[in-house]
């Protein structure tokens, strides 16, 4: 490990600090493998959902249940938060620690907004419509798939929030940069999964 404290000012930080060390490059490469595994995991949940989506028992069908404006708002919020993390990485490449922290904070705040809306949506279904996890095979598959994505959002929020704390404490170095880069990759992947969720679960649920 190179001594990070010699590299932590804007003048001495390498142009792509996340790839400046072997450890950083390995972290990013391994994270791609992890994301490949995540794709498989969500793939199986989508497979389950698609096979069970019409087994609604005496509960409502997707057509009766989903409210598209809420889903559209959640989609835009998550997309904007993904853009915020792109700006964060660009600030990191400029060696601008303050802007990096600002954009990461914006990512976290929008992520919290998304999560709040998802909790509202689930509460609406469970409390007001009495439509729970065990109502039907469709509801089990729906809550598992969408809830699992929501859990990923929650994890990402906690992760990025902790990284902001570490960034403030330890500064932008070749040690902290790969962590932030990897967290941004994770956040984009969450957005990628959401694209499939709003398409397959919500929009296709209204069509067929």
């Amino acid at each position, binding site marked *: 490990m190179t001594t990070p404290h010699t590299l932590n000012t804007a003048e001495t930080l390498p142009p792509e600090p996340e790839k400046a*060390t072997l450890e950083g490059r390995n972290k990013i490469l391994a994270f791609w493998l992890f994301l490949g595994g995540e794709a498989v995991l969500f*793939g199986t949940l989508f497979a389950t959902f698609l096979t069970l989506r019409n087994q609604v028992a005496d509960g409502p069908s997707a057509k009766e249940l989903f409210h598209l404006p809420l889903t559209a708002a959640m989609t835009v919020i998550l997309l904007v938060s993904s853009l915020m993390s792109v700006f964060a990485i660009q600030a990191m490449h400029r060696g601008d620690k303050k802007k990096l922290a600002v954009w990461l904070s914006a990512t976290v705040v929008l992520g919290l907004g998304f999560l709040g809306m998802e909790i509202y949506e689930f509460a609406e279904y469970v409390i007001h419509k009495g439509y729970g996890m065990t109502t039907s095979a469709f509801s089990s598959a729906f809550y598992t798939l969408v809830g699992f994505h929501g859990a990923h959002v929650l994890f990402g929020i906690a992760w990025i929030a902790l990284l902001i704390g570490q960034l403030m404490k330890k500064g932008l170095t070749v040690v902290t940069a790969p962590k932030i880069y990897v967290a941004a990759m994770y956040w984009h992947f969450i957005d990628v999964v959401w694209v499939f969720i709003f398409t397959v679960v919500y929009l*296709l649920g209204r069509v067929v």
Partner: protein
Amino acid sequence: MVNQESEGRAPVVKRRQRHEGPEKHVIAFIFSIVLTLIAFAAVAAGEVNVAFTVILLLVMAVLQVLVQLGYWMHMKDKGHMIPIIFMAGGFFVAFLAIIAALYWMWW
């Protein structure tokens, strides 16, 4: 080569060269928003043609995912062959699981 780079002090000029502006990413963002809008509008418009709408929705989703993987996760940049293999492998197995499950249930 890169180890030397990290141990020595990188010149400031180099960072200037590598820096890219936000324009490309803002364009990718607008493109994603447009794709999302098309998808939601197609569904909100109501009963047009079910098969057409389904295909349209899937095409919009795939395009948006490609924009995000390519631009925001830098997969289109050089030196991303192994990440592409990892992700393509993941998507292949995921797709296989979906096809197998649907085949098993419906045919």
